């Protein structure tokens, strides 16, 4: 077959290039620009080199926020993934109740993040919130505005409530794609429930679970709105995750240079972890018989 070479085809890519330039490249470059300059106001900037990067890398503040961030992502992944699988396994396979469950489970996903935060903020209040009041009434000392553990517990439970559905729905889709013959064969082979899960359901779900883990990791690593609404990063800095810290620095203190340097490193970390993750997962997937 003869292929004609026509360089004019590049023009077809142009609209996308323009769009991506405006939505991603140009904003990112502004950030890069800020990260290597300093200002004393009046819109006068001068070159600062890698000073901000060095400062950020040696600041405890950023490392602490990163530590909290990693802990948060790890905890919610450790809860949401198994819980989502468990929910998916116990959902009805067909009929009215299957549709009912699907709708019910997608509800939290449809609520704007701000509203989720507000719901939990009120829900957890000791004076008027159902959860906070109840816990207080049965003698548990719960106050997310003052207690470190209460604040973390609230933020984590909120995220689990908000996002487990996503994992469950993805896992459910994976389960639905398993032909009946597999379950029948397992019955004939006298496989236990655990073995059915381990050798049939889990392998067939791996693909979607990978996507679920990746999505939940990226989202949780960038979390801002919900904890900001509920705890505002407190008490102290105990729930100040990377995004919250970044906003405080950039908009609260108006330290544009350090914040820009911080942003770039934050971005690279997410990119790096996601890439490592994806590579490891796809390699696991390809690990065919040798």
């Amino acid at each position: 077959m003869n292929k004609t070479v026509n360089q004019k085809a590049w023009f077809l890519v142009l609209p996308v290039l323009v769009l991506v330039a405006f939505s991603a490249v140009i904003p990112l470059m502004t950030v890069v620009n800020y990260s290597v300059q300093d200002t004393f106001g009046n819109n006068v900037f001068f070159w600062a080199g890698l000073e901000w990067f060095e400062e950020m890398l040696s600041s405890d503040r950023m490392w602490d926020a990163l530590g909290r961030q990693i802990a948060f992502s790890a905890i919610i992944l450790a809860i949401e993934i198994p819980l989502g699988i468990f929910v998916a396994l116990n959902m009805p396979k067909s009929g009215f109740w299957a549709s009912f469950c699907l709708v019910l489970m997608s509800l939290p996903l449809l609520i704007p993040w701000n509203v989720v935060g507000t719901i939990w903020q009120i829900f957890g209040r000791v004076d008027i919130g159902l959860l906070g009041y109840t816990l207080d009434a049965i003698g548990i000392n719960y106050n997310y505005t003052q207690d470190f553990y209460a604040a973390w517990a609230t933020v984590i439970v909120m995220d689990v409530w908000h996002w487990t559905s996503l994992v469950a729905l993805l896992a459910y889709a994976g389960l639905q794609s398993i032909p009946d013959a597999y379950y029948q064969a397992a019955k004939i082979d006298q496989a236990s429930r655990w073995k059915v899960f381990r050798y049939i359901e889990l392998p067939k779900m791996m693909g979607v679970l990978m996507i679920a883990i990746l999505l939940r990791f990226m989202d949780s690593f960038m979390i801002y709105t919900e904890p900001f609404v509920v705890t505002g990063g407190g008490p102290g800095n105990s729930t100040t995750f990377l995004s919250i810290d970044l906003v405080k620095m950039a908009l609260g203190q108006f330290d544009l240079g350090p914040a820009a340097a911080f942003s770039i490193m934050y971005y690279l970390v997410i990119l790096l972890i996601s890439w490592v993750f994806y590579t490891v997962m796809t390699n696991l997937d390809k690990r065919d018989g040798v």
Partner: protein
Amino acid sequence: MAKITLDNLAHSYLPNPTSEDQFALKQLDHDWVDGEAYALLGSSGCGKSTLLNIISGLLHPSQGRILFDGRDVTHAPTAQRNIAQVFQFPVVYDTMTVRDNLAFPLRNRGADATYVANRVQQIAQMIGMEDMLNRKARGLTADAKQKISLGRGMVREDVNALLFDEPLTVIDPHMKWELRTQLKSLHQQFGHTMIYVTHDQTEALTFADKVVVMYDGRVVQMGTPQELFERPEHTFVGYFIGSPGMNVLDATVKGDRAVIGGTEIALGKAFGTPSGKIELGVRPEFTRLSADEGLPAKIKRVEDVGRHKIVRTDVFGTEVNVILAEGEGISPAANRVAFAPEGVNVYADSWRIKAEGEAA
């Protein structure tokens, strides 16, 4: 291994079937003899998979009982029936090695490790996969996977029956022959009761000792390939088995004469005066072209299929096929078809009636 008895069995997918039409499987009484190889043959939707799933316990029948060696297992779960089943599409445990796949049914039943190792080796040799035992099952070709499924079906020595649900559908044609031959020789070697569901007559006829032909939820005939060929009990059997199928012509029969479209022909045997919708069934192999006897026919076309020629003719508006041996010419004077008396069957309401004096 066991004798399987179907007692008054019927199944409907509706909870409260009211008419016979609503039964996917109509009432059925049969014994499946221990150690024989059966093929369940029929077009799709005839109830053959339903029957298989009832035997394996994946489906509970609406009525009747199933007995294994006289023991009622109608409501016993699959695991307790001790059967093995191979499905239409290969079912393998992707993340396991081929070895673990084959060993799975044995290990789940708590078999001794050395026994498992030996048995797996033996089965691997049988299905020709010894050199792949340590490979993961994922990424193998469809026919390799199906071989593993077959192997997993055969790995237990004490199974009551081996069930196959169109197992060769996904296999390449040249592998089909090989696997079928292998199955056949395994059957001869181990004597398992085997039930093989298929819609492919060649598969059924080459594999089975007895072919069970199903039509519209009913077993219409159970017999050796030869019986099905020579004496189809139902016009469906005649039509479904054979290539091309049996010629079926509307007729009136009286004694040893039949009248078709006003032309009388001799049948060679007496059939009394049957009532109902009377048809004559003659296989193309027992039909010949003639210039001076039989029914007036118009030759429409001739198909040369290599071994022989198929002549498609028109007899009073009904298609009648004639098989001519290779090299046999068609005389220009041939404008009639004649039937060999030993190949003529008479049907009343689609069911074959016996000639007078024919052994029961």
